[in-house]
């Protein structure tokens, strides 16, 4: 087994780490206070090509494999998580559907602007009454002439207030439900009948904006169906399953950052006349944090590699999402403990990571849903 990282990807990792640690980090406190990522950071990320990570080269992206993308997302994961989410949700769930399922015409029309970051992508599946239970979806689409007419409300849509292009899942045949009755649409924010509703106030992820998306007789051209009519549910699952591996990589990056912060802080903080790193209680926490991080990394790399080999990851994708987000939860919790009272203060980054880490067990499928999928698959594999 070869675990070496190609030179080119190593250079990219180093560049992103440099950018995140030396540039984005400087504004982290400001992002928290203003709930806004400074435009110049977004512009720099655009120039670096970070928005095009998973878009094929022929449409202006980098065309990276899943493993290479994970290696880069790991570095982005070190940043203020709102910055990571802006790029991660775009390169993941925001563009995957178009890249993998849309017609050539749609790809040519939308992907170049999405690869450059000029148009941000978002994914709209969740509704007030349809969270984990996608079968309760109410948003519907009816074909009238050469247009689909969408009606309904989506909520908790990551990046929605800042996005221009939405992958929207709607019901096109209620009878068939999730088995052939859902369809994916590509909706622009300027289409008639489209609007952004309430912007949510969240526990964390300050700087990343999440809102309702409202469709009132929203007109979508017929050709803007992503994939086939009636294949939207399967499409949504496919989009989510890829996103899960990438989310794992982001969690690993956040763990890396916390381990580093704590290993350094523990050697600086003096109590009882010694650095607290000399105490076994602290050493154990550091050792467990670092081990959790490496375990999450190993699983993420392995499953990303499986994706690149075209192997099914129905069971393994959710494992990455579940394990990495829970590893991050343990690591962030211990990070606060290592910092002690300081870890509860907003002037130290661990407080922010602790709050922001919580979302990773919720979004892109709660971890309970991941467990259901893993167990379901497992029981099928060993059916008696």
């Amino acid at each position, binding site marked *: 087994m070869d675990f070496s990282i190609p*030179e*080119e990807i190593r*250079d*990219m990792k180093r560049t992103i780490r440099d950018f995140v640690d030396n540039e984005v980090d400087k504004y982290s406190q400001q992002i928290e206070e203003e709930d806004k990522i400074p435009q110049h950071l977004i512009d720099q990320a655009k*120039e*670096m*090509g970070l928005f*095009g990570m998973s878009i094929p080269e022929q449409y202006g992206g*980098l065309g990276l494999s899943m493993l290479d993308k994970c290696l880069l997302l790991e570095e982005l994961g070190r940043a203020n998580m709102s910055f990571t989410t802006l790029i991660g949700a775009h390169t993941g769930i925001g563009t995957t559907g178009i890249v993998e399922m849309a017609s050539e015409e749609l790809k040519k029309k939308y992907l170049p602007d999405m690869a450059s970051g000029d148009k941000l992508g978002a994914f709209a599946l969740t509704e007030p009454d349809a969270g984990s239970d996608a079968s309760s979806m109410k948003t519907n689409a009816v074909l009238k002439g050469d247009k689909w007419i969408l009606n309904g409300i989506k909520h908790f849509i990551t990046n929605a207030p800042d996005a221009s292009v939405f992958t929207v899942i709607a019901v096109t045949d209620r009878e068939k439900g999730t088995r052939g009755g859902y369809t994916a649409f590509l909706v622009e924010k300027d289409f008639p009948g489209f609007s952004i509703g309430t912007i949510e106030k969240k526990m964390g992820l300050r700087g990343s904006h999440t809102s309702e998306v409202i469709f009132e007789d929203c007109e979508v051209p017929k050709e803007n169906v992503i994939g086939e009519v009636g294949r939207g549910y399967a499409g949504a699952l496919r989009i989510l399953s890829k996103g899960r591996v990438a989310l794992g990589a982001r969690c690993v990056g956040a763990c890396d950052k916390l381990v580093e912060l704590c290993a350094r802080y523990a050697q600086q903080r003096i109590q009882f006349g010694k650095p607290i790193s000399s105490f076994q209680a602290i050493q154990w926490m550091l050792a467990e944090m670092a081990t959790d991080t490496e375990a999450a990394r190993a699983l993420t790399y392995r499953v990303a590699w499986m994706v690149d080999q075209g192997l099914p990851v129905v069971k393994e994708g959710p494992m990455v999402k579940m394990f990495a987000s829970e590893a991050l939860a343990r690591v962030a919790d211990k990070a606060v403990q290592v910092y002690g009272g300081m870890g509860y203060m907003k002037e130290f980054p661990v407080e922010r990571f602790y709050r922001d880490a919580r979302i990773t067990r919720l979004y892109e499928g709660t971890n309970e849903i991941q467990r259901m999928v893993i167990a379901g698959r497992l029981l099928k594999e060993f059916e008696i």
Partner: protein
Amino acid sequence: MKIAVLVKQTFDTEAKIILDVNGKISSSGVSLIMNPYDEFAVEEGLRIKEKEGGEVTVISVGGQQAQDALRQALAMGADKAVLVDQGEAELDEYATATILAKAISDLEYDLILGGFRAIDDGSAQVAGRVAEILNIPVVNVVTGLEIEGGKAVATRETESGSEVLEVPLPAVITAQKGLNEPRYPSMKGIMKAKKKPMDKKTLADLGLDDGKISAKVKALSFSLPEPRKAGKVIPGEAAEAARELARLLREEAKVI
């Protein structure tokens, strides 16, 4: 405009310096970066190229590891690189400058840029020596640069302020912090860098040998700075403690 930029691979600014068993600086486990002052030079070269047209060639002396710095410069937008491997030869500023000047004299150049010093040895000599060998003007510690009509107008820092100098091209200009804000390489740039030419040369390729560049300065020994001693806390009432502090500063530390 043909621009040559001198680049050095150095220890990361956060690297912990340790000495090996032979008393030499150990590079094991240390991450390497492009000398930050050279980054300003590369950026300036690219900006001039983008404005005036032309070509940027980055040049370094060093082993395999110096390739990383050159590749970074190529990823930022430089057009080609020249890497001279000095082999087993010991380098001092004279040797490095001799090699660089020889490598540059094989190229066409209108402008040579470099950092005003490297953050490792901090000697700030190499670029000046290159100018001397090539018999062209040098302006050091530059924070502003304009190129117009075959001349360079450079603003440089002095101890009491700044001065603006004009020199005919070709000339050597060394960069100080403030000259510009270097760009991050784009991911596409990193992909392209791999395909850009990197000309690897040995001393023999340049018509040099160990004898011609034999170092004039030899490092005899290295030592680490004394670790900082723990501070002293003076207990007691403020007025009392201040008196004691003044006494210690005068009698023990002998600073007042």
